[in-house]
């Protein structure tokens, strides 16, 4: 069980208050009809399943209901940082 810091509530709370919501920075294609089946499938189904530090979305489901970004190590489960949504749009952006 992780202890997760909600960037909106500004409190560290037990994992049972949160739900994971998949990999972060998966943007919905702007023009779905204009892309190939493969590109669409890549957006819908394919995820990196990265080993190491990984950006993902969590929601404070039993709290403020806000979605936010979490950088977590998939090896040690250590949470390196959290950020509100919109604070960054990719892994490299600061």
């Amino acid at each position: 069980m992780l202890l997760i810091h909600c960037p909106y509530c500004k409190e560290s709370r037990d994992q049972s208050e949160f739900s994971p919501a998949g990999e972060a920075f998966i943007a919905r294609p702007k023009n779905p009809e204009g892309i190939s089946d493969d590109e669409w499938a890549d957006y819908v189904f394919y995820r990196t399943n990265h080993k190491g530090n990984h950006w993902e979305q969590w929601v404070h489901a039993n709290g403020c209901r806000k979605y936010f970004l979490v950088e977590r190590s998939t090896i040690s489960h250590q949470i390196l940082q959290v950020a509100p949504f919109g604070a960054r749009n990719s892994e490299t952006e600061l």
Partner: protein
Amino acid sequence: MRLAQHSSHQVNYSKSLNFIFNNKRYKGYEGDTLASALLANDALLFTRSFKYGRKRGLIAAGVEEPNALVSLEIGGRYTPNLKATEITLYDGLSAVSASNPNAFDMRAFIKPLHRFMPAGFYYKTFIKQKVWAKVEDSIRAFSGFSKAPTEEDVDVYDHIFHHAEVVVIGGGAAGISAALEVLNNSQKERVILVDERSQLGGELFNEFSSDEAAMKWHKDSINRLLSFANESSERFTLLTQSTAYAWHDQNFIEVLETITTAESLTSSEPEKARKIVHRIRAKEVILATGAHERPMLFQANDLTNIMLSQSVRRYLHEYGVISGKKVVIYGNNDSIYSTARDLYVNDIECIVVDVRSSEGPIEIGAELKHSGVKVLQGYSIVKALGSHRIKGVEIKQTKLQDNGWHVFGDTQTLSCDLLATSGGFNPVVHLDCHNGAKTYFDEVSQSFLPQQERDNREVCGAVAGAGAWQDAIIDAKNKAQFTLNALGVVSKLKQEILSENYSNYFNISQFFTPKEIMNMPKVFLDLQNDVTTLDVALSIREGYRSIEHIKRYTAMGFGTDQGKTGNINGIAVAAELLKTPLSALGTTTFRPAYTGVDFGAMAGREIGDFFDPQRYTTIHDSHVASGAEFEVVGQWHRPWYYPKTGENMHQAVHRECLAARTSLGMMDASTLGKIDVQGSDAREFLSRVYTNAWMKLAPGSCRYGLMCNEKGMIIDDGVSACINDNHFIMTTTTGGAASVYSALEMWLQTEWSDLDVHLNSITDQYSTVAVVGPNARKLMKLLCQDVDFERKNFKFMQWRQGMVCGVDARIMRISFSGELAYEINVEANYGRYIWDQVAIAGEKWNITPYGTESMHVLRAEKGYIIVGQDTDGSMTPMDVNMSWILAKDKPYSYVGRRSFSISALRTEDRLQLVGLLTKDSSTVIPEGAHVIDNKAKSIGYVTSSYFSPILDRSIAMAQIQGGLAKIDETVLVKIVQKKQGLKEIPCEISSSVFYDIEGEKVDGND
């Protein structure tokens, strides 16, 4: 046997306790464990082994014990597979061996066959030959474990949550020292000390009981700790009889505290917990978990009264118990000499057999010599003698030759009735490894030590390889300084110097077992699972190389003791056979839990009514008063049907359905999910998440919507009402409310943050009473005067605001039955009132409340789907023949739309939802039954099936491959009946709309 003149800090000899073991009465003392009390009574036999049925006794005094499995108490207090060494004795205790050692046992009877039962025996003999199903029950009866409980647990268990800056695990010399160092050098940091024993001190009392300085340090330290605990329970918490059994990510530690006193079993306070799980979040962890002794290997090393050397001493010092009069002490390190001294000062005859040919510890060696204790150096025990209880040992000389260790020369025999062995120590690295730490093999201490550096944790004492108590406490102080530094409490680190032989205190000889001994039968590694050196050799011959594979092939370390005593020896044997260094072979993976945890303790108070929240509508009491039967949907208790006296479910549903179709019915629809959608982009939002058009829906109107996920699969449906251009109320399915709400929030927050839309769940804020049937309009006119109910003015799929029986209400003309129907939505607290008013006013039309079962029949007659019953997360709108609901000209590509054009969702043989009419109209197909083609191959299955009272025949819906193109074709449905066996039911594929195909009923008849 108990020593006559013994004073103990552990046992209170003035208070004797009665207990029963295997139906025999015994006496023990307060402070005893079940194991020590039985040993004092010379009751040595505990169990029969797992595979060969060999009689076994105790080898250890703590949690590492592999043999002494017992079940405690009976009935609602029955607990299976506890170790006798873990059970604190109380008056009236009653326990039984997991596998009765005195009963007749088949396995011992077939003794000559044991050599044909190597590792993999059961698999090769029974599973490969496909007879396992026939013999499983009889083999499992021999398993050597207690029977599962049959009664409900009457005990109460608690969970307590803690936050602490520092948690120290282990209350031996190192743990005490570390906790004190932190407490002495900090002001407000919260410290928790956890120890599995009932008294702090660990092995101090055994290894160092004759050291006066050690005893004084212990006494002073305990007093100091207790004064901290007394000053402030916030600052320092001491948990004894508490085992830290798991260490999870982010320093989340789970501890099981056992409160086994006679009082707790007979207490008049029924709420008093028997065990408590402490869940601790720590900033820093100091591990001082100590080490377990490992046994030496030789033939028949499983005879009773062959024990670990330190355990012999623990029984002697703590409980005043010794189970023999003539003791051989055998080992490869200096601690066996201390054991010998502890025995002879208590006038017990002993002989030391040391495999090392070099000198033992000089001081104690001289003392032993002076006292006439015989010491044999350079000898190995090759075999223990005796049928069940040890009677003597055979020894041979040992030396190192070019290709390994060998025994040679003549066999000598020593007689004894107790054998104490020590093969070195295994640091208790289990917890550290639970959350990912690695170990490394240390040549000096001949053990796997925890990796040096980790964030937020320190290791000290025996688990870090320390031998002497002085080193353990200095090590602990030094490490505690690091912890204080990490917490920002101290900036300048105080570090004391450790002695040179920190990890070489016991002078342990290199890990080895002579070849001649390894090749003997019955050299047991894992006593609980009967794994021998030959089994390990066999697994290697069969090609296994990884220690993880060898473990699984032989079942070594799979028992309830998790190989605490046997595993490292097994790994060493494998390393020798594979000619691989131990460091390269490594250990198997240590996983939680470190020791057994009761299911009751895991569940805590979250059982019965507290297992899952129960949700009731505000009308619930009325349903109960009406005699409704309930079904649980999500967490909601919904009326299922309302039987009148003498009616069964079928009869009640029949009556309810006909009432709604021919006159008037009413239903509590409050459980449907309701989401308030507000904002200037609310309309755009709905048109993005639903497949159909929403831009032109006028205020005062409602619309049915189908919701898909991005994969194009149906996830929910429901009616939304336009309150005004900036305000809609969406309804969802009862079960889907939470997940839909969460999915909508995700779209708004992560993709469409530019939309001005706000969502709120209002499911609990409104009660909904549905009035259904041809007479619904007449009734509504009676109940509400300020709304025009004329059919041309209040059309189907419209809503009106009005006062119903004096209560402000939104009345929606929507229908899930195909009949004229109104849903009256009022503030939740008025739900019961409105329900009752509707019931009274409807009496003249014989208004009939109906439940979910009739609702299902009514909707199925009309072919309305239930998401989650007729769809399963792999159905598109096209699959359920609802292509009409897909808008073609919406500017935004709504959720799921792009997926509809993927070829896989367009194939003709997809499962499609169709109706199914049995040729024999009275036969109702069981839901879930398979539809088969003329080659008896499954082409789909039945999703809904009922008897329709209005049609007087059975109806069903089914997902059938390419079903929409097969209307009017005949297929078979295959079912299995309990008595008649297989049966095939001929059916015709039909449209899924069975009743009122033209849709004329929805306007009523007035």
